[in-house]
């Protein structure tokens, strides 16, 4: 419902949050690792609510175990429950890994999870136990996501391996894509696979290559890759012929263990990169620190410019030229931008979601002439403004209102005055778009009110093509719907 009075002063309560809590991101990451079961250390409700939330997006089974706190547990500590839960998960699923994420409850009572886990490894051997601290009162689901990726990489790549493995061949590239869709992950895999089919390595002695330090490790084509996490198969598999306790797919644990021998790491997310600059750890920064693996940090490749950057880095890292297929995709995309330019130019959009995603989408919108008049996120890393300043041209930036730490109610109140033409973001903006009576272009996570959310492609030239077509067609449909006479051509 529309509030009667519009308030602009600071508001204490959060109304219709534009974020989820930390453990959800961690649970999703663990579903992207082969043979892994997430286990939340807290109340039963946390697991069940997050399962339900994820199931509604992926439309797949998403098992999340719980240590199932009771009153006694809260008073005397969760050690016994967690140990019992681990043993039961190990017995019932025989997983390769159990990903243990904390909740606000276990964090607040001060459970020392590493201490509780001490000795448990041996008990459930060969199951690997990974622990990530995800108190729900800090950050958002995205922090839980990055935290879990970091925790897994750290656990699987202890520093001692550096010396023993130093002489082995380095070939692979580690890819940490962040919270992308299944289709995005599949597209990434396709891109890397296509690169490996290219037979002509680029000149590693070129000034560019030398400048980027490629000569030190490039031994011909380095096109093998490990993407972490990869839930694209596990959370979108075929109908089962046989029961699967843990669905097939996910990044193999042995590949994660080999990450310390990669030629380079690639990590998406300009906000993530900024937090790393401030001293926070990411999976990529950890590998760089521990094993001197070069890290390429870049924004999520949405739109031509961001994707160009991505392919440039890929050419350098793999010492392989961009496959013809992608040059063609790029050509078609720009031609489509031209064909549709008039329908999108000067249109005004409200963009919301997790911060890195907002930055990427805003960059894409700006390059086709759409003004992202309001860029909002429930997250408040402190870097949203800066990241947008870096990606948006000055003339556009002047017209953009940036709001980190914003909820949907404030967004709705702020957006009204900005006269937006459409809204772009996850399903949770439905209420806002309905109240503002403008269309919603669904992207990101979660998509709860449509089928096929996990199949939305955002990244690469192909992703930009699909986004562009969707946006143009949404605007055209709007024109048709609001036209007095209607028309069947344009």
């Amino acid at each position, binding site marked *: *419902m529309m*509030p*009667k009075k519009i*308030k602009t002063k600071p508001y*204490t*309560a*959060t*109304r219709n*949050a534009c974020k*989820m*809590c930390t453990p959800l991101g961690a649970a999703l990451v663990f579903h992207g690792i082969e043979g892994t079961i997430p*286990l939340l250390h*807290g*109340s*039963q*409700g*946390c697991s*069940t*609510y*997050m*399962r*339900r*939330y994820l*199931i*509604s997006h992926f*439309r797949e*089974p998403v*098992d*999340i*175990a*719980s*240590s*199932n*706190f009771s*009153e006694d547990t*809260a008073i005397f500590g969760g050690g016994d429950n*967690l140990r*019992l*839960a*681990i043993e*039961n998960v190990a017995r*019932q699923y025989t997983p390769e890994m159990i990903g243990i994420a904390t*909740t*606000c*409850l276990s964090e*607040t009572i001060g459970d020392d999870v590493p201490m509780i886990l001490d000795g448990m490894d041996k008990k459930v051997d060969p199951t690997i136990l990974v622990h990530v601290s995800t*108190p*729900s*009162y*800090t950050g*958002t689901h995205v922090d839980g996501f990055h935290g879990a990726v970091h925790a897994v990489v750290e656990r699987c790549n202890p520093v001692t391996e550096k010396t023993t493995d130093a002489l082995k061949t380095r070939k692979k590239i580690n890819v940490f894509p962040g919270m992308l869709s299944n289709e995005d992950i599949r597209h990434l895999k396709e891109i890397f696979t296509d690169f490996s089919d290219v037979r002509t390595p680029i000149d590693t002695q070129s000034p560019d290559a030398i400048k980027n330090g490629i000569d030190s490790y490039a031994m011909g084509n380095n096109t093998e890759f490990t993407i972490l996490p990869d839930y694209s198969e596990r959370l979108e598999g075929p*109908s*089962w*012929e*046989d*029961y*699967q*306790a843990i669905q097939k797919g996910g990044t193999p644990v042995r590949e994660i263990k080999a990450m310390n021998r990669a030629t380079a790491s690639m990590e998406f997310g300009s906000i993530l990169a900024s937090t790393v600059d401030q001293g926070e750890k990411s999976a990529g920064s950890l590998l760089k620190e521990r094993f001197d693996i070069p890290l390429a940090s870049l924004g999520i490749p949405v739109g031509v410019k961001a994707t160009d950057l991505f392919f440039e880095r890929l050419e350098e890292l793999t010492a392989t030229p961009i496959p013809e297929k992608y040059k063609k995709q790029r050509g078609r995309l720009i031609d489509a931008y031209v064909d549709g330019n008039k329908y999108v130019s000067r249109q005004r959009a409200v963009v919301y979601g997790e911060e890195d995603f907002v930055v990427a989408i805003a960059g894409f919108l700006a390059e086709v002439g759409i003004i992202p008049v309001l860029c909002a996120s429930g997250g408040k890393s402190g870097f949203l403004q800066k990241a947008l300043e870096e990606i948006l041209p000055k003339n556009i930036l002047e017209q953009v209102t940036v709001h980190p730490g914003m909820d949907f*109610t404030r967004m709705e109140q702020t957006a009204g005055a900005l006269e937006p033409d459409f809204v772009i973001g996850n399903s949770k903006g439905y*209420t806002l778009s309905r109240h503002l009576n403008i269309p919603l272009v669904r992207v990101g996570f979660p998509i709860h009110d449509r089928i096929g959310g996990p199949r939305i492609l955002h990244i690469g030239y192909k992703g930009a093509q699909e986004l562009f077509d969707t946006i143009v067609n949404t605007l055209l449909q709007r024109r048709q719907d609001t036209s007095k006479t209607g028309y069947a051509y344009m």
Partner: protein
Amino acid sequence: METISVLEDRKNQIYRKGQDSFDISCEKKSLAGAVSQRACVFCGSRVVLYPIADALHLIHGPIGCASYTWDIRGALSSGPELHRMSFSTDLSETDIVFGGEKKLEKALFELIEEYEPKAAFVYCTCIVGIIGDDVEAVCKKVAAKVGIPVLPVHSEGFKGTKKDGYKAACDALFKLIELNRKPEKQIPLSINILGEFNIGGETWIIKEYYRRMGIEVVAVMTGDGRVAEVQSAHRACLNVVQCSGSLTYLAKDMEKAYGIPYIRVSYFGIEDTSDALYDVAAFFEDTPKIMERTKTLVQEEVKTILPELSALKKDLTGKRAAIYVGGAFKAFSLIKALKHLGMAVVLVGSQTGNKDDYALLREMCDPGTVILDDANPLELAKYVMEKDAHLFIGGVKERPIAYKLGIGFCDHNHERKIPLVGFEGMENFAREVHETVTSPVWDLVPRKAFNRAISKKG
């Protein structure tokens, strides 16, 4: 064929009719590490109170509990829609350290000023109990200043099961009634409807039946609910309780405090809906006209839907169904409704059933039927495969299990958009079951492969 093993500690929560002595274990905390389909205390409170549309629902805790329950079920309102807003104190690290009372108080004042609710519920989540916020005191203070009821709901997630959440919600409802109670006269020929949440418009169907019978509905708790109606509930002659006891606590409290008797009913299926209406009519036996009208109503309604039901039954006869629902009471009705459609129930289970419920289920089921308490995805998958079900009735968490195994699905939980109660609800239910069971997509899924594997295993 992968063998699915059942955890040793879970074995006495599974019963197979005709095979062993009946001593199902239930009403237990879920086993740590088993992926229970249950939620928590907070969830129980939230589902019960949520449909009260002109109340403020503020969730006191970190953001998750509010995010995951924002506008996730129908709970349709014919008027205000304040309940569809998700309000949270969104506690951060500093609040955890220094306490959340001030934030809660400030949030309440601001929200009440802006949205002008008729009452406010403050849901305590897990950590509120741990950090020691005196929510009761904050609520009292705010209530005194703003002049509306501000009620704490003691729904800390870990303090029991979903059932304890129902109880906490009932306590809040009872307090709400008590706050307003004046020596008002009882309303003749009147009832309260309890345990009906208007997910897909059910409340309106049921109310219309009672209107036709000549009975006044004082309050529905809580479908399409309003604070003022709830506060008049003590003036009704009878409480008619639906659902497996989520509101039974309240009915008992009201019986004790105001002498209002209660009966338990179900509005799912022809038999149970008719029984419900007849039971209510029988209560008002001093007004025989009510029973006459009820008979006419039932006859008319049944006559309207029978032709279609018979047509649908032709395709459904002999098909096998699995049921896994929150409360066992719903399962009773579903078994009857499915029998009406010619279908056999091969698995039935609930999250929160008690010993009596399971005893009754055992009586109602055919030999070989598997009965489960607080099942997990592995067990559900194991038994629906073993029983080769054509249909699974459950909620959103059961849907992917059914679909992955190539089994039709009917949502009988929060996410449904079509009313399934009463006579027209039975028709909707039959249509939905028919749509999914007879879909041609099952011919394309590889289900038959594992069916063969199962039969080989014996």
